[in-house]
């Protein structure tokens, strides 16, 4: 089996609240935020008929698809950078465009924060005096409610899902030491703790499953490839935190993609099975000292750091044999640097990881103000770390003071909020929205539907995530001043309903 190029992307559900709004409704507020960002640009419907969230990767067939909440799908914007911005589960959600590698995925994830910051500012203009809107890139309200940060990876359909699961459970449990964004306290009935590494760990209750909102599983089986299902699976990873740190999103996505590539070529050794997977998730998160160990199936014990060194070792060997790109080399170097520093002194990573940066800040406040862990001020610091407003957000204050390392400039992030990635089909989607937005009636990850003024709508499928990039379609777009020209050039000229053309 040869590995499939790891097209990647992230999805973020943001926390939302309005201060001094007695009738605050998160669905209405989220809709306001998204509509404000969209302004007067064309609304593009998201075509749901292509999605099948009830399909299960284990091959058990269908479970009933979750009933769409009344608001879902009503507010939807497809951005010129190829991303989707919409209301999901009473939260504003940004789904990044398909990215070519982890560095690009981290960049477009940050672009999503900028989009939400701008949207929030636009929406705030219609609020009454004294009311203030807040958008947080976090995953928990500290009261037992969690909302997601998901990652997506294109993997080879031929890879047996069971094999994937055995490797991923210990990997996901241990990678929390560099994927966590930090949280004061615990939730969901887990043991009390002052501070823990992740926002999400308390909410995982199953090993493998289809759910994403209840009884969340460590490995999610949603099988909705948004691509040719005979070739690809889209691994939908729900066990991660939203990260503010650029390094952290880069490492989280990069390390996971490399592990998946290595699994595809049989490059990992025998899986290290955890004796108690679900318990291991919160045990790792509840130990900021990184000293506790997890029981393995064979009765031995290993720390999260040891498990991660194991995976890094495996992946480094894979890299030696198969070769890696410059970006993947940077992932390996970053991975090694973070593990080395976490082992030496977790606090030494406070310039690169959210959970250690936040802990450092909380410790300094505890010292200066003599605060107990239960102090509301510490909870506020925890929350405000995640505010996407660059004046208020404490992550952004750390950046402004030169205390967090960055991978991108502001100018790069601003560009990514507008322009699509150039090496995936997101380029075609984003460019079409930019050029022919008025003629696009519906969009999805794997198709665009045009109304070019003829009897039938024209559907342009995009089943191959790596096709539709700049090198393949820039000339075509240049030669097509109108959407009708584009559809004609793609070969869908006969006007029949359901006419299919392909930008590749």
């Amino acid at each position: 089996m040869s590995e499939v190029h790891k097209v990647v992307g992230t999805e973020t559900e943001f926390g939302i609240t309005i201060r001094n709004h007695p009738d605050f409704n998160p669905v209405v507020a989220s809709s306001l935020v998204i509509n404000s960002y969209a302004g007067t640009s064309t609304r593009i419907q998201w075509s749901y008929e292509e999605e099948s969230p009830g399909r299960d990767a284990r091959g058990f067939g269908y479970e009933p698809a979750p009933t769409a909440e009344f608001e879902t799908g009503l507010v939807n914007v497809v951005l010129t950078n190829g991303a989707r911005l919409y209301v999901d589960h009473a939260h504003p959600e940004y789904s990044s465009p398909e990215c070519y590698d982890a560095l690009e995925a981290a960049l477009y994830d940050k672009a999503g924060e900028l989009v939400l910051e701008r949207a929030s500012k636009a929406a705030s203009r219609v609020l009454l005096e004294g009311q203030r809107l807040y958008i947080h890139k976090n995953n928990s309200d500290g009261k037992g409610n969690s909302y997601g940060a998901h990652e997506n990876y294109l993997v080879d359909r031929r890879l047996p899902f069971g094999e994937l699961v055995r490797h991923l459970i210990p990997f996901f449990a241990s990678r929390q030491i560099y994927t966590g964004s930090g949280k004061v306290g615990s939730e969901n009935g887990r043991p009390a703790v002052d501070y823990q590494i992740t926002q999400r760990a308390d909410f995982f209750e199953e090993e493998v499953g289809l759910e994403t909102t209840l009884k969340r599983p460590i490995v999610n089986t949603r099988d909705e490839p948004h691509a040719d299902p005979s070739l690809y699976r889209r691994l939908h990873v729900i066990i991660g935190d939203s990260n503010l740190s650029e390094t952290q999103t880069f490492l989280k996505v990069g390390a996971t993609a490399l592990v998946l590539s290595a699994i595809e070529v049989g490059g990992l050794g025998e899986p290290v099975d955890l004796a108690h997977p679900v318990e291991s998730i919160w045990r790792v998160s509840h130990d900021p000292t990184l000293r506790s160990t997890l029981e393995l199936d064979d009765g031995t014990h290993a720390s999260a750091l040891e498990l991660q060194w194991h995976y890094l070792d495996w992946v480094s060997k894979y890299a030696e044999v198969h070769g890696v790109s410059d970006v993947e080399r940077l992932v390996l170097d970053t991975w090694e640097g973070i593990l080395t520093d976490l082992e030496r002194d977790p606090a030494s990573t406070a310039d690169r990881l959210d959970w250690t940066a936040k802990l450092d800040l909380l410790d300094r406040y505890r010292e200066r103000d003599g605060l107990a862990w239960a102090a509301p001020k510490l909870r506020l610091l925890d929350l405000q770390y995640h505010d996407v407003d660059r004046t208020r957000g404490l992550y952004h204050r750390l950046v402004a003071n030169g205390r967090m390392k960055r991978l991108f400039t502001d100018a790069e992030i601003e560009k990514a909020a507008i322009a699509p990635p150039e090496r995936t089909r997101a380029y075609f989607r984003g460019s079409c929205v930019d050029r022919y937005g008025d003629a696009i009636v519906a969009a999805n990850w794997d198709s665009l539907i045009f109304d070019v003024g003829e009897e039938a709508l024209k559907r342009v499928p995009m089943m191959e995530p790596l096709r539709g990039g700049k090198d393949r379609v820039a000339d075509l777009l240049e030669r097509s001043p109108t959407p009708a020209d584009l559809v004609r050039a793609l070969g869908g000229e006969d006007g029949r309903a359901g006419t299919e053309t392909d930008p590749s």
Partner: protein
Amino acid sequence: MAEQERKQTRRDDSGREVEEDQHAATEVGEELTEKIDDLLDEIDSVLEENAEEFVKNYVQKGGQ
């Protein structure tokens, strides 16, 4: 404290005498503490007022 007393002498791995300027080290330490104090002051100026009420009212609907 006299300038002379701030200097301590120790031997490095090769046995040479190394003079450490405690004065300089203290200054760096003070500068760092000052910077942290400035950072906390800056954060104080942007922190939401009435922390208890804000945190108490921050309730989200569960999502994915």
